């Protein structure tokens, strides 16, 4: 049954690849020679003041009304027959540039666009050129400008890219104020979060209230919620692609801010003008420095509580054809008091080499290392003193090639290989007094590979296609101890594999298809299908998750999770392209979806695989987005209706249950209004159904306590959630010879102090032990914050 669609797909796929490689596009009078005689125009599109490459800038050949967009390295290429052309380069918030070209040989044209002085004036250029939103065969994708993210009012004034994407349709915060997110009903571990191509395994600081991304160091973010490009794999639900700034190539500059809980400083500049530049960015919270020293209690005074982020990047242009980027991120959270201490953090490193084989063939080679670790312990000298560590490391090598065949056809292909090293837990006693025996869970090793090819083709004036195929594979590698489990999930025996032994294999195809059909100049219909496979999973059993949750690989006991998703959408620009509107419907099916048994024990458990229960999941939804990118008033309204369910034979008596992140209704209104050039106000209002919960429907007495008897899993819902955030900003006067500018931002998170339930507990009355109450805990009342930002 599964063979037929596969054969059909591969046949279609080969047809498209062939048609792309040997384009027959054109009028019937075209001869073979004329077609073959094409020259390329290629180059980079940059910001004139900083030299930063612009991602997704539009390049349109005016004569053909066809074009392309720059890739993530700001590179574009179009191949045309000889002749005279006008190329128009445009990017949101920048003045367009037009270049006349007499094309009689391959040409390299780098363009620098100047930022529009009248910021966001009422001329509409969407990020990827007029109507790219409508035309591109790309759906379930949201791109946010870092500029507009900075205007969204936030918790404690900390601008946060993840909080911003939570306001998009199909994306839900996994808990109040948290930076975990669920895309189309998926689990937070089904999101691939990349920072300059390196995986970020835990994007949270401070128990999730802040994300690891320092907005001053971020250039661009793009979220793929469904139709994930074939270049990427390894996660079921989404790809969040975060790109760091490269560093100013023109002059030394800096930006920073002093906020309520943290300060940050970014410095960037040329090491050699227009050839080499650097970026350094740091952020640190200072509650421990400012407030703790004044605490009355000595124990509080001696506590530690802070987090920091450090981003560094260097890039060097060797020549027109070669460029190197080295990026690093380090972040850490540290907590400590007289009883315990804990620290956790990510590190990511990537080294990338852009190489142009020709004006048509762009390549990027990447080496990546990313790691996440935590440690936890108690002070030395006690009988229970211990130190506990957990760590995971990835090493990847990657090659990506873009072949720009013609304005109508682009081909991408590449390969990636990742070595995973998981050290789930190592605990040992501290000091002679400690009675804790050393306890280690064995490390796991695995090799994950992906190879892909994908193409984008225009067929006539109306049709655009994107079709890709990815093949991914996964090998478990020794040293390893694999337990076998009986039908009750009790370990029976184990098999030990030697070092370097490849002992288990998974692999499979992941087709990714999308098409758009232009109904007219301003509207289109789109459809997509994608399959994704996930080989590493997070052992997270709570909704918000903790820094202690560990990742684990697929294995002889755990099959990879597989997702199939179809989506259809209607896209339309309104009001002379000032408004972008879209409606998307999706249906997603999950196979081998991972859940955990009741009362699962996921940490320091050698038999953790025995805690896993495998089932199926499904999700469907309808997403609306109305967005205005320019003008004094800009922002968006998003609404999602969705439903997500799971069926796991051993959970909820085998009956379907509502998935933990299911919120049927989810609305977000995000608005920004510029009162004058110097003053702007922003607000967002979110409304959503409460998260599903399990409540007690009965009770019993045992040893002086009242204990619950529960409903079916997730049979109830938390109260509905809503919240208004407001902010007002004042910028410094624009003086011609001032070397720096500033703005001051006053924000109020939860402006009308809605008490949104974070958790509901059932407790016994203090005075009458027979009486029980429901008690809700809410995290935030109104939280004002003042932030001062500067830039020079």
């Amino acid at each position, binding site marked *: 049954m599964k063979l037929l669609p596969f054969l059909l797909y591969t046949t279609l796929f080969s047809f498209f690849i062939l048609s792309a490689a040997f384009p027959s596009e054109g009028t019937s009078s075209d001869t073979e020679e004329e077609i073959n005689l094409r020259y390329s125009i290629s180059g980079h599109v940059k910001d004139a003041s900083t030299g930063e490459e612009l991602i997704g800038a539009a390049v349109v050949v005016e004569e053909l009304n066809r074009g392309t967009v720059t890739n993530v390295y700001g590179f574009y290429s179009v191949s045309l027959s000889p002749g005279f052309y006008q190329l128009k380069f445009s990017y949101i918030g920048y003045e367009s540039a037009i270049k006349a070209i007499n094309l009689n040989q391959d040409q390299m044209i780098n363009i620098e666009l100047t930022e529009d002085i009248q910021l966001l004036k009422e001329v509409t250029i969407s990020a990827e050129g007029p109507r790219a939103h409508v035309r591109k065969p790309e759906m379930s994708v949201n791109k946010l400008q870092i500029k507009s993210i900075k205007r969204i009012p936030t918790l404690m004034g900390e601008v946060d890219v993840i909080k911003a994407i939570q306001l998009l349709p199909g994306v839900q915060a996994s808990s109040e104020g948290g930076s975990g997110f669920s895309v189309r009903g998926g689990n937070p571990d089904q999101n691939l979060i990349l920072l300059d191509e390196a995986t970020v395994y835990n994007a949270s600081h401070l128990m999730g209230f802040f994300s690891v991304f320092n907005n001053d160091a971020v250039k661009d973010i793009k979220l793929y919620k469904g139709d994930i490009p074939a270049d990427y794999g390894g996660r079921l639900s989404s790809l969040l692609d975060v790109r760091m700034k490269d560093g100013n190539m023109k002059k030394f500059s800096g930006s920073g801010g002093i906020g309520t809980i943290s300060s940050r400083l970014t410095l960037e500049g040329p090491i050699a003008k227009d050839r080499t530049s650097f970026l350094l960015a740091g952020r640190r919270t200072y509650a421990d420095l400012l407030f703790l020293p004044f605490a009355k209690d000595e124990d509080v005074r001696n506590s530690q*509580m802070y987090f920091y982020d450090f981003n560094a990047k260097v890039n060097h242009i060797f020549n027109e054809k070669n460029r190197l980027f080295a990026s690093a991120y380090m972040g850490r959270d540290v907590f400590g008091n007289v*009883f315990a201490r804990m620290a956790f953090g990510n590190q990511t490193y990537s080294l990338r080499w852009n190489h142009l084989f020709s004006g048509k063939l762009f390549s990027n080679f990447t080496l990546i290392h990313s790691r996440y670790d935590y440690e936890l312990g108690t002070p030395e000298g006690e009988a229970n003193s211990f130190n506990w560590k957990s760590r995971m490391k990835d090493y990847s090598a990657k090659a990506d090639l873009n072949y720009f065949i013609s304005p109508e056809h682009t081909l991408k292909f590449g390969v990636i290989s990742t070595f995973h090293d998981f050290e789930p837990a190592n605990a040992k006693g501290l000091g002679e007094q400690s009675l804790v025996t050393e306890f280690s869970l064995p490390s796991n090793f695995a090799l994950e590979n992906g190879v892909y090819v994908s193409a984008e083709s225009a067929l006539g004036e109306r049709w655009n296609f994107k079709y890709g195929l990815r093949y991914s594979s996964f090998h478990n590698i020794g040293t390893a101890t694999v337990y076998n489990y009986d039908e009750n999930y009790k370990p029976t025996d184990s098999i030990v594999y030697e070092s370097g032994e490849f002992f288990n294999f998974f692999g499979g195809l992941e087709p990714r298809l999308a098409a758009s059909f232009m109904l007219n100049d301003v509207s289109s219909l789109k459809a997509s299908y994608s399959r994704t496979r996930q080989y590493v999973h997070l052992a997270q059993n*709570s909704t918000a998750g903790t820094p202690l949750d560990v990742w684990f690989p697929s294995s002889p006991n755990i099959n990879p999770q597989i997702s199939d998703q179809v989506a259809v959408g209607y896209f339309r620009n309104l009001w002379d392209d000032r408004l972008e509107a879209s409606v998307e419907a999706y249906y997603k099916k999950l196979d081998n979806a991972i859940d955990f048994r009741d009362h699962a024990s996921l940490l320091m458990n050698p038999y953790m695989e025995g805690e896993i229960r495998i089932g199926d999941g499904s999700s469907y939804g309808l997403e609306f987005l109305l967005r205005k990118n320019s003008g004094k008033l800009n922002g968006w309204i998003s609404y999602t209706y969705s439903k997500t369910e799971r069926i796991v034979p051993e959970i909820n008596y085998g009956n379907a249950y509502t998935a933990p992140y299911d919120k049927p209704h989810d609305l977000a209104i995000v608005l920004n209004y510029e009162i004058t050039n110097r003053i702007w106000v922003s607000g967002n209002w979110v409304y959503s159904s409460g998260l599903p919960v399990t409540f007690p429907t009965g009770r*019993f007495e045992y040893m002086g306590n009242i*204990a619950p008897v*529960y409903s079916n899993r997730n049979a109830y819902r938390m109260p509905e959630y809503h919240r208004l955030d407001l902010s007002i900003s004042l910028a410094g006067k624009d003086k011609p010879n001032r070397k720096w500018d500033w703005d001051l931002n006053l924000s109020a998170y939860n402006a009308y102090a809605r008490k949104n339930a974070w958790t509901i507990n059932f407790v016994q009355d203090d005075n009458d032990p027979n009486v029980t109450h*429901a008690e809700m805990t809410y995290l935030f009342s109104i939280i004002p914050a003042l932030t001062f930002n500067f830039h020079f």
Partner: protein
Amino acid sequence: MKVILAIISILVPGLWNCTERIEVKVDSTFTRLVVEGYVTTDTMAHWVRLSTTSDYFHNQPAPAVSKASLRLDDGEVVHTLREADTLPGWYFTDSDFYGIPGKTYTLNISDLDIDGDGLMEEYSASSELRRVNPVDSITLRYFNAFGTTGYEVQVYAWDSPERDWYSFKVKKNGIMLTDTLTEMNVQSDEFFNGNYTHGITSQFLSNEKPDEIVEIGDTITFEINGITEDYYYYVIEAQSQIFPQTPLFSGPPANIRTNLNNNAIGFFVAYSAEYSSTIATSDVVDGGVNQ
């Protein structure tokens, strides 16, 4: 493990400050038999309590189940339990009864109709009585941290080379202080199997609870029980469902295990008990300020 998580949750500032009562409407569920019963190595009248579940906001004592027949089978002898005249639902053994380590005890309950269908039902549960090592000694240590004061009960004992599961209780002057499920402490020797305990803190007394305030001359008695793995997890699961739960650390709420059959809930457990006492001296009480 749970202690570690509790410590971390203390580190998260202010999470527990904003709590208020709310109205929540919940449905009813069918009535189940609830069994709470113990067999220990102490010589005394042992008891089993029978009650039923009720609606969550019932707000009355659990309805007692009277007039049932209860038999306790130790593999050789069957003992009959009798319901007390003054305590409906409480069934007692003879006062010279004691459990013997190594034996498995089975509780059989009959002659009761919980589902009200007019037909009598039968229930049963079994528990092995595991032995426990004696405690060499205990000490009290005063603590004062984050504005809370009290005492740690530190224990010196050998853990046996076999896997063990323990529950820890504390008495003051013969009166049980840790008399509820949530005050009892259970521990598995997973991370210290076969080791000497070197005075590990095994229970706490808090000055915030009036009955736990220690005065000079008070006799503090530590009770250690050798329990079954199943009962250990019963207590862990019950505590996790009774203590407040958070989206950070708690998994989905789930019903607590039982060792009873036939849809009954609760637990019947057999365990051994050892004791060790100390007298609170002036250098310990309130950190020695009264010396």
